[in-house]
């Protein structure tokens, strides 16, 4: 059995620092969910329970809108969360070759803290050679804490807080994506998945919504790269 990859405090700290830097917009996004949850008749405790167990703003907001429609069924809630979070299938798949080297238990715990922003941050450091698999968990802990804090504040004080959109909360994820993509594009060849991803997202997003647009971007970009890959005889081994 090969030795486990590092999973230590140093990597956790590196991730934690990045997570802290990303925390303010997540806090504001959490406020938005707390406000919407309170408007839907959830108490602060129930809103916090949703944030702790689902930990996905887009899925939570979509589920609440289904509840508010008056036609909520358990199937409708399940389908809504599955559709909104289908991109996490890709996130988990792309992390697996790297994260699984830390062992199953550590991987599964880390995946509980997986979100859009820290997936992007982690894929960037994997690309740069990060070895310590605790990095993902380190980024996720502060994000979950501020997500819960924002949810609580929004649910309790929503009536007197400013509109989260006015603070740019809706642009948090796209801004992280744009800036980290800019840093990760190192060669003209990297622009190919960028172009394919944008095209696929726009085509599918216009037809089936943003959630499927993101899934389509990943599948199209990854699919094209697989179809055109040349065997150089040296695997990445990441």
């Amino acid at each position, binding site marked *: 059995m090969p030795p486990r990859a590092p999973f230590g405090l140093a990597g956790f700290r590196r991730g934690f620092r990045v997570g802290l830097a990303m925390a303010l917009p997540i806090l504001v996004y959490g406020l938005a969910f707390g406000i919407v949850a309170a408007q839907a008749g959830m108490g602060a405790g129930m809103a916090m329970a949703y944030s702790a167990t689902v930990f996905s703003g887009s*899925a939570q907001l979509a589920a609440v809108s289904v509840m508010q429609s008056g036609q909520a069924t358990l199937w409708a809630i399940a389908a809504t969360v599955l559709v909104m979070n289908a991109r996490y299938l890709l996130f988990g798949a792309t992390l697996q070759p790297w994260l699984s080297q830390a062992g199953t238990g550590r991987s599964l715990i880390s995946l509980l803290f997986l979100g859009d922003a820290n997936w992007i941050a982690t894929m960037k450091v994997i690309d740069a050679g990060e070895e310590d698999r605790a990095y993902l968990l380190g980024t996720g802990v502060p994000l979950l804490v501020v997500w819960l804090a924002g949810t609580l504040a929004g649910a309790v004080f929503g009536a007197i807080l400013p509109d989260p959109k006015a603070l740019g909360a809706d642009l948090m994820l796209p*801004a992280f994506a744009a800036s980290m993509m800019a840093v990760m594009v190192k060669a003209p060849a990297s622009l190919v998945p960028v172009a394919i991803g944008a095209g696929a997202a726009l085509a599918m997003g216009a037809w089936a919504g943003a959630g499927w647009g993101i899934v389509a*971007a990943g599948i199209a970009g990854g699919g094209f790269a697989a179809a055109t890959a040349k065997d150089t005889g040296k695997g990445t081994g990441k």
Partner: protein
Amino acid sequence: MTPSLTAMLLVAAAAALACRLAGFAAMRYLPRSHRLDAALRATPLAVMSGITALALAAGGLTEALALGTATALALWTRNDVGAAIGGVAVAALLRAFGG
């Protein structure tokens, strides 16, 4: 009859957990190859690009300026997190002035 909030919470949590774990678990059964490695390397960039493109398509000038600022700051400083926060700050500022 509308289900209870607790029942809906349990279903939503189970669905979210399934999405987090299923892709990771499925990869254990895919044989590694140069094509799979190429796909895994390209997917993050394609997803980031898709997220950005969808936000640009849904937004207007304010959103374009905010994301343009984030991109330019990232290219200039190589500090992606700071650049993202700068982009969000530009959006908040423009919206405060009616953007």
